[in-house]
């Protein structure tokens, strides 16, 4: 540890942890060590998860449910066991409230579609309103635009303050008696902002609107307690939390899942089918049509085990220390401007910035030549770029294996970028 890192507290033992992630050993461009700072896009996968995936296919693979043979029973036990693990991870009152999807986007679309086809009192139609925010990921914008187009419901949103926070000053005009659903991000993937859940939930409850929280950037990074959030639905995605691709989660309150109509139809989600009509299985199966992503759910279960073994509070602490250090160091870089909160308070471990008028694509490319992987562009949150009048940002985002040394490398890399285009 260099002098600059002294005083950083709450860091994890990354030297040990990093050994769990084979990809972090990779070198690029003639021997440059990989500095992976694109964790908000996807996290890397520990050996513990990769091994569970292989073991699933080598030992237990079968289609789940309905099988009376050993493999089918084992696969089912593993799949449903993963549901138990996820339920515990988010402190769900019941395992039956955990629906497996393919990614967070499907989870969000699922809610939008359920509400579009629902009966009263949930039904979204031309007399009702939908509320989102200007800092949503496209996956929490487009489903509502589609729903609004299809039903005639009015789409409204909270704007942003100059320092990257939600502007809730007009909350009473935005969320009204007409609001059926308020859907917002817990931690922004572009700004890093952690949003004030309680204020929004309180207002939504006042008017009887449902609340959907997009926890895609929260579940990987901090303890998540769906009961404490008091939301009706919470969505997140496996590949950002040490899990495999191809798996997402929607948690929903049991009564709602019972009342709301199914979305996709097919095998597994039915109770009984005739050519004339069908009845549906109880949740969560009602919302899981077809052969589910079995191995991926099992892999997500292993990821949850991995994260829990480290401790979500410890991970949050580590990332907070790293983020604090990163904010401090980045602000030392001339012409660098952070887009989003410029302190580490109430913010997650993703930091977007601009570097003078050097285009982010160029920043990212020159950093890549040094082995540093960051993301550039609008990060699927283009309205945020429009809001701040910029075409794109460069984003560095951290995770449990990120080190202060990697921040130093990033800062040196940015100096190089400045010189190169200067």
């Amino acid at each position: 540890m260099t002098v600059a890192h002294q005083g950083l507290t709450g860091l994890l033992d990354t030297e040990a942890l990093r050994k769990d992630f084979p990809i972090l050993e990779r070198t690029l461009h003639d021997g440059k060590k990989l500095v992976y700072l694109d964790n908000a896009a996807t996290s890397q996968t520990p050996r513990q998860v990769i091994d569970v995936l292989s073991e699933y296919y080598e030992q237990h693979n079968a289609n789940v449910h309905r099988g009376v043979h050993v493999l089918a029973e084992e696969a089912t036990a593993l799949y449903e066991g993963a549901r138990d693990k996820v339920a515990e991870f988010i402190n769900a009152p019941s395992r039956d409230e955990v629906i497996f999807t393919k990614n967070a986007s499907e989870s969000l679309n699922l809610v939008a579609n359920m509400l579009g086809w629902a009966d009263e009192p949930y039904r979204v139609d031309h007399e009702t309103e939908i509320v989102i925010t200007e800092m949503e990921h496209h996956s929490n914008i487009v489903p509502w635009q589609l729903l609004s187009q299809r039903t005639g419901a009015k789409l409204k949103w909270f704007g942003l303050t100059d320092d990257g926070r939600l502007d809730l000053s007009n909350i009473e005009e935005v969320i009204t008696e007409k609001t059926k659903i308020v859907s917002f991000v817990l931690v922004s993937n572009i700004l890093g902002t952690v949003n004030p859940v309680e204020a929004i939930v309180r207002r939504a409850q006042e008017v009887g609107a449902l609340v959907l929280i997009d926890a895609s950037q929260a579940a990987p990074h901090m303890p998540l307690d769906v009961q404490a959030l008091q939301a009706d639905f919470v969505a997140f995605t496996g590949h950002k939390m040490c899990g495999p691709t191809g798996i997402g989660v929607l948690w929903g309150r049991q009564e709602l899942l019972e009342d709301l109509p199914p979305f996709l139809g097919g095998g597994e989600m039915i109770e009984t089918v005739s050519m004339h009509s069908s009845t549906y299985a109880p949740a969560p199966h009602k919302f899981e049509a077809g052969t589910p992503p079995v191995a991926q759910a099992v892999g997500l279960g292993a990821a949850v085990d991995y994260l829990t073994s480290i401790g979500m509070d410890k991970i949050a602490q580590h990332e907070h220390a790293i983020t604090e250090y990163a904010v401090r160091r980045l602000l030392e870089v001339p012409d660098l401007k952070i887009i989003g909160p410029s302190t580490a308070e109430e913010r997650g471990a993703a930091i977007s910035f601009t570097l003078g008028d050097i285009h982010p694509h160029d920043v990212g490319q020159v950093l890549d030549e040094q082995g540093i992987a960051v993301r550039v562009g609008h990060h699927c949150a283009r309205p945020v770029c429009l809001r701040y009048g910029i075409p794109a940002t460069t984003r560095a985002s951290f995770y449990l294996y990120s080190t202060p040394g990697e921040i130093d490398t990033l800062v040196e890399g940015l100096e190089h970028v400045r010189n190169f285009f200067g």
Partner: protein
Amino acid sequence: MYQDVILDHYKHPHGRGLRDGDAEVHHVNPTCGDEITLRVKYDGSRIEDVSYEGQGCSISQASASVLNELLVGKDLAEAQKIQGVFLELMQSKGRLEPDDAMEEILEDAVAFAGVSKYPARVKCALLSWMAWKDATAQALGADVEAEEAERKTA
């Protein structure tokens, strides 16, 4: 899992056939198509008859036969107790070794202990029991639930 007792009940079911009753229910196990139509007849709180017709695997058929043998003639409270113990056994995932006390209560039904290891089959074993519970609720109305709630808190 195929204890002789189970095979016996399967091949020679007790009380099979539909007879007169106070309520009738039809239950289906959607995962395998097992079906049962079941009627209960009460004399006050005494179970006068449980009659049934159905199709399904040996486990679901034998279980209905055992149910008939065990419950007919019993008082509702006692039948509910038996049902509760049977449910506990079936949900034990093979981890419950029936002791003498349990055997006294469940009689032939302890033979189903092995079935509890097979999650796909537990539903088969429970099909008739769930149908009986449902039919009883219909026949006796709200009383049952009150009584059951009482039993739970007792």
